[in-house]
């Protein structure tokens, strides 16, 4: 095993392994209306700890991880490695990817050797070290296999071996288990924790990005919960439960519940009820939540056993939805004022109850009313269409407007969301060929058409 720890007394840790100071990161084309993905984040990563970054998608946790790995340069702020000032950046950190990121044309061993090759390690040593890493991670016998011959769990093991073989002091993991099925993820998590607890890995600290609350509580010594408007560290939670941890332990459950509550808490800055979507007014980044899912969640909360009020962890478990799937839907309900999120619970409003009890047409009308009242972009589109004599406007007009507030991807996603909602509500229509929004004549002149196209 050549993955020995550094015993050089000169490198004895004197401070944090990584120190992140006032890091901000902004996306956006114009200088004025940048979307802050990270806002003034401070973080110290210490020796011998696993730290989790928890938050919904878009909260900047991945951006922070990539900033630490050196993949992107933050717009402002400083990231330093106090103990490794004189070393190359690439050698002190290594990253494990959500998608595994293996080269399909290289064998397991060649994949693992990639980082060493970049360091110009001699071929003999490269082979020895790679074999040792493959052995440690439990893949011996598969050295000559190609990634496509491996299962997902085995592929992530290769990704892990590739990261460990370069002797990093910090292991960065970007949602490493989220592309795996539940069973495989659990095995891999346990194996990783075993290696960590037995001190068999050369690393000094792990920083893991996740959206899975239980996973964070299971693995981490410290959890940083990110809020997303803009990306900030909302709270820091120390997990003192001894390893191995038990999901059924009441203390464990209480912690999970507590984090759910924190993640749904309204921040002081967001106006009442506007949910937690980044941006305000027509510049709000909206998730593409299908109206079917939307109705489905309202019905689920309205029905037994929840009867209008549900505990989010229980609801997530009942519907088999992960946090980053459940939250956008729940928050969309909140944006429409069909539900309220507070204290880790979701509670239907009177309007939400009425929606649950109505027939298709009544639902559509209610939806349309709330869409125009509470989704600024939708009412903006409708107003523009009403003002134009032809009741028609190119979608690019709104796309450009959105891109002043957010990245191109977010703009596309947001526009897709309001397009679908507007179509369902029959508030406006969209012609994909011409890429235009328009109001159907009959509908604009008379009452909204009442053809139920469910």
């Amino acid at each position, binding site marked *: 095993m050549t993955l020995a720890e550094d015993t050089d007394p000169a490198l004895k840790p004197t401070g944090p392994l990584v120190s992140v100071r006032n890091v901000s990161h902004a996306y956006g084309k114009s200088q004025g209306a940048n979307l802050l993905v990270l806002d003034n984040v401070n973080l110290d990563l210490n020796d011998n700890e696993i730290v989790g970054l928890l938050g919904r998608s878009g909260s900047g946790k991945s951006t922070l991880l*990539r900033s630490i*790995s*050196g*993949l992107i340069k933050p717009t402002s702020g400083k990231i330093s490695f106090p103990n490794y000032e004189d070393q*190359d*950046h*690439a050698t002190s*950190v*290594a*990253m494990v*990817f*959500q*998608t*595994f*990121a*293996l*080269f*399909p*044309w*290289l064998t397991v*061993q*060649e994949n693992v050797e*990639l*980082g060493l*090759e*970049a*360091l*110009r390690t001699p*071929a003999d040593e490269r*082979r020895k070290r790679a074999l040792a890493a493959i052995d440690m991670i439990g893949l011996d016998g598969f050295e*000559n296999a*190609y*990634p*496509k*011959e491996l299962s997902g769990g085995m*592929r992530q093991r290769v990704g892990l071996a*590739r990261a460990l073989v*370069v002797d990093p002091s910090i292991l960065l993991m970007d949602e490493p288990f989220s592309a795996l099925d539940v069973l495989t993820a659990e095995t891999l998590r346990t194996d990783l924790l075993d290696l960590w607890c037995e001190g068999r890995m050369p690393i000094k600290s792990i920083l893991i990005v996740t959206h899975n609350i239980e996973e964070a509580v299971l693995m981490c010594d410290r959890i940083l919960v990110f809020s997303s408007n803009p990306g900030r560290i909302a709270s820091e939670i120390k997990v003192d439960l001894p390893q191995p941890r038990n999901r059924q332990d009441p203390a464990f459950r209480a912690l999970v519940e507590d984090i759910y509550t924190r993640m749904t808490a309204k921040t002081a800055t967001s106006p009442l009820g506007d949910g937690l979507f980044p941006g305000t007014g027509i510049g709000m980044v909206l998730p593409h939540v299908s109206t079917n899912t939307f109705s489905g969640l309202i019905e689920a909360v309205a029905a037994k056993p929840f009867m209008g009020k549900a505990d989010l962890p229980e609801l997530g478990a009942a519907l088999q939805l992960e946090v980053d799937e459940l939250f956008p839907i729940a928050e969309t309900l909140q944006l429409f004022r069909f539900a309220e999120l507070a204290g880790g619970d979701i509670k239907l409003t009177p309007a939400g109850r009425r929606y649950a009890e109505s027939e298709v047409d009544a639902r559509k009308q209610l939806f349309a009313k709330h869409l125009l009242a509470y989704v600024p972009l939708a009412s903006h589109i409708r107003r523009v269409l009403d003002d134009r004599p032809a009741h028609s406007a190119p979608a690019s007009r709104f796309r450009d407007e959105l891109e002043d507030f957010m990245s191109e991807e977010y703009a596309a996603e947001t526009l897709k969301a309001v397009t679908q909602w507007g179509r369902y509500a029959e508030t406006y229509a969209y012609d*994909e*060929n011409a890429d235009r929004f328009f109001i159907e004549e009959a509908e604009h002149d008379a009452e909204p058409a009442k053809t139920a196209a469910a």
Partner: protein
Amino acid sequence: MVFLFEDRRGGATPLARFLPAGVAPNRADIVAFVMLTALVVLIGHGAAQMVQPLSKLVIEPVSLDPARLPEYALRTTLRMFLGLGASLIFTFVFATLAAKSKKAEMVIVPMLDILQSVPVLGFLTFTYAFFLSLFPGSQLGAECAAVFLIFTSQAWNMAFSFYQSLRTIPNDLGEVSQQFGLSPWRRFIRLELPFATPALVWNMMMSMSGAWFFVVVSEAFTVGKTTITLPGIGSYIAVAEDHQDLRAVGYAVAVMGVVILAYDQLFFRPIVAWADKFRFEQTASQEEPQSWLYNLIRRTKVMRMLASPLSWPAMLLTKIDWKPRAPKIEIQIGPRTSQAIDTVWLGVISVLVVVAVWFIGDFIMRTVTLDEVGKTFLFGFATLARVVVMIAIASVIWVPIGVWIGLNPKWAERLQPVAQFLAAFPANVLFPFAVMLIAGLRLDPNIWLSPLMVLGAQWYILFNVIAGASALPNDLKEAVSLFHVRSWQWWRRFALPGIFPYYVTGAITASGGAWNASMVAEYVTWGGKHFEATGLGSYMAQQSADGDYHRVALAVVVMSLFVVLFNRLLWRPLYRFGERRLRID
């Protein structure tokens, strides 16, 4: 296992890596050895012939003796591979440049786009003059002109494919390379080149198919008073035409068929089978492309040993280690400054373009009157009409047949390679038969020469439609039959929309081929007698034969305009529509 990636299983040297498995040759080894030796001898012979003085062509003209045909075929093939090599070098240099530098991209990408649709045969007149003056008195000049023509017919789509691959490198793999700090060279060898390989190999194959047509033309070419006949299948056929020797044409057609089959089996099949491992799919593919030769190489010990030199250049590539000389100096420029630089760059390019246009215009208008320019445009419309009508007729014939074949998996499997073979076969080799018919029956060349334009190109429509119909999803087929969708509705709602993206791809290639073929299809000779159809192609051919460079330039410019506009106004919108609305995934 050959090429590019060192295989560390056995040890350091490629020889040692296979030796421990035992060296006793088996029967397959002997077959392989004989073939490999033959190949080496043949290439050596062909190459030696190329540098002969030009006067040798006069003393020893192309003979119709069938015994000489294999040698001629070899020399034609050698030209093809030289062109392919040049195209590859061009691809690596320019596509990489375009993908890495925004400034280069602004110039290279539109240029490739135009060059892809410009008729390359028109350039032959100029390139011959240029290369003959470059190597006066040597056969090398003519050889270079031929190879250059092949290059111009092959390079653009290869470069485009490589550029597109580089632009679509998966994000996560890019991040891994960046995070580990791979040097740019290592990133190219480990990530970019392998990722681009499957698409590049496919485009090389398509390029080769198209290029047979041009190599045949380039071997017997007349510019003004000089007629060059480079020994090869093309010149053999040209001589046979002069002597009205149908039997010789028949021999040439047969040899051509054998050559195309051989290069497919011995060259492209193994490469396609090998390139399959670079396909970016994490799941094992359903049907791997098979090649008996590739399997032979992989399975036989001695063959692997013999083939191992093929991997040496690639191993060398991975061994090269260019250390970045100095840490990159990052110059921070604001968005304003970078925009200003872009504007200046665009300005420089625009000035260059204006100068080029002025230069070409001046060159053409030195002897050509405006009236004639108008007349040339009229010729253009005549050829356009031919292309449109012929593509329409070919579509009406081949779309139903292609759909029928594609829906019958048994037939599709058997006939798809045949269609691909026919697309690769240079149709101009068959022209003498058609011309003889026209001459014999006294048919109107204005009408009856037209089919020659799509003789070779139509197969692209067929094999693309077959591919499209085979890809129609089973559940749709079942739904259609459950609802008793029949006759016209079946075509309108199911088959035609389903194959549309494939059909458009085929039709774009076919119409490009038809434009290119117009120069040889509208103007044919049989036993010294000319037959011509009024059109831009025959105008170009005639002016080229008269050595009137100004008018050839005019014809090339007009044809380029027609083709580019045709592509922009018809094919591209159709393609976009198909991609957006009718792609079944």
